[in-house]
């Protein structure tokens, strides 16, 4: 499944890029009156853009098999190297926000379900609807005004302060945490709403089951019933949803990283799209797809761990 998926995804990206009018050579030659048609043709040939697109795609796939993503049109550096520089920042952002989402959504959902229709549950419901509807980039702006400008607690952009090198080790970690706080929070906030809702519905469904009644009947304390009998079963759909929400989370990076001037892969991809740096766009697209697939795989494995009835063929 993975290989056809990967081919499908890269083929779509490739087609979109090649079928669009204009190209990287335009950007390089349009503003230069001295660029002759001849120079243009040579540039096109240099980039391998003169061949028909199926050939170009075949060549690209061939190089990909050797983990060669090509070189950036812009600064001639290998795409893989550019991605490798940016990937840790994006991974850190996404993993931290996933942890935050999971860590907050599970207790939130369980509490709402256990105290169904209480004040807490209603407040949580309002929060969920607002969380769904709030545009992440707007929330970022508001938080930047509040914490960055009015209160001055957190930096507005980037990943490191200008005087980063002068800090001690602890200071460096604190500096990093301060820079990560807003992007991670915003990225987690929107995902949190949906997941806590699923968690709530999952628990509501499970606590009506016979085995939960049995657990209660044999006199177990309520907390134990919820924790060991209900929770694990309620987690099953949540794990699936978490896996499905990965493309959105990774897609969100393209927006957050641009807003926060965060030096991650999303911003690299955005800049490459604007500059029509084809090899970098393809590289980032492939990487994003790979991360999504990896996430889905992890979700599948977690699925088997949560639900012992599921066994994958040996």
């Amino acid at each position, binding site marked *: 499944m993975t290989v056809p998926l990967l081919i499908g995804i890269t083929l779509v990206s490739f087609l*979109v*890029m090649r079928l*669009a*009018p204009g190209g990287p050579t335009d950007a390089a030659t349009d503003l230069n009156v001295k660029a002759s048609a001849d120079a243009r043709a040579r540039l096109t040939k240099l980039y391998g853009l003169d061949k028909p697109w199926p050939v170009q795609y075949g060549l690209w796939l061939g190089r990909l098999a050797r983990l060669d993503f090509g070189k950036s049109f812009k600064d001639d550096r290998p795409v893989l190297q550019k991605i490798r520089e940016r990937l840790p920042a994006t991974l850190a952002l996404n993993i931290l926000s996933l942890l935050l989402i999971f860590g907050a959504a599970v207790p939130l959902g369980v509490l709402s379900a256990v105290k169904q229709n209480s004040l807490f549950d209603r407040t949580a419901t309002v929060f969920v609807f607002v969380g769904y509807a*709030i*545009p992440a980039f707007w929330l970022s*702006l508001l938080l930047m005004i509040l914490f960055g400008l009015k209160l001055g607690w957190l930096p507005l952009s980037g990943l490191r302060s200008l005087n980063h090198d002068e800090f001690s080790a602890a200071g460096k970690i604190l500096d990093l945490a301060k820079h990560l706080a807003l992007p991670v929070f915003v990225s987690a906030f929107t995902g949190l709403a949906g997941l806590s809702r699923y968690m709530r519905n999952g628990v509501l469904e499970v606590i009506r089951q016979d085995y939960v009644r049995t657990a209660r009947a044999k006199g177990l304390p309520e907390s134990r019933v919820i924790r060991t009998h209900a929770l694990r079963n309620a987690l099953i759909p949540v794990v699936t949803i978490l896996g499905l929400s990965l493309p959105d989370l990774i897609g969100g990076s393209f927006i957050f990283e641009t807003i926060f001037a965060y030096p991650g892969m999303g911003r690299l991809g955005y800049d490459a*799209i604007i500059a*029509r740096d084809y090899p970098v766009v393809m590289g980032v697209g492939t990487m994003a797809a790979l991360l999504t697939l990896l996430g889905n795989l992890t979700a599948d494995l977690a699925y088997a761990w949560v639900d012992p009835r599921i066994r994958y063929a040996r």
Partner: protein
Amino acid sequence: MLRLYLRRFLGNPLALAGAVVVLSLVALALASPWLSPTDPLQQDLIHRLQPPSPAHWMGTDDLGRDVLSRVITGARVSLAVGGLAVGIAVLLGTLVGVLAGYHGGWVDAVLMRAVDVLLCFPTIFLILMVVAFLEPNILNVMAVIGLTSWMGLARLVRGETLSLRERDFMLAACGLGLSTPRILGVHLLPHIVSPIIVAATLGVGGAVMTESALSFLGLGVQPPWPSWGNILTVGKDYLHIAWWLSLFPGLAILVTVLGFNLLGEGLRDVLDPRLGNE
């Protein structure tokens, strides 16, 4: 049946609230040329970046334009993009879903694998790519949002079609020798229309959000024409001196998306109680 729906609808406060918000927005968008206090494009460089006041309820922007007028006109842009994008998605999603579910076999396999592939793709990346490589304008934005958001609907419609395909009335229609378009259009479609309406209503909220994000990044509706997203772009540039530029357009997006989501959830409860939350 309709009366039952109406009674359930009126008895559902969330759905009602959503309907009120959505209807007001539609009215606002339709009447925007008459409702906006000034021309949304008219500049007034002497009164630039004014905070909210009785003359300008939401203040003025960097070129002295009235923010309230721009936000009102922005409603038109957002709803038009949201509505048309969802229209495209509904058409495509229903077509693919019905085809896959009814035909089955290799058609189903091929279409659903394609849906899997597209669902794995970070959609926003695809949208950014298409809009940036083609010309960023309102038509392209509409088209690309529609073309990238039909997959969930296709899955939904396929599932419904599969479950209906072997039902007696479908077999009867088939046995009568009706043509396939007639079976699908007259006999199948009415049964799957409620989940489609629910998904479409929820989809408008998502499309409005995507449009504003694109416009915010400078890849959607182009200035000077106002969109909630591109007013926010200016807001970002003047973050430290003009909070009103960031606050109001965002609130408009929030209210709009919230309205459509409430209406969608409400419609789900009304049209199909078995899909409801409780």
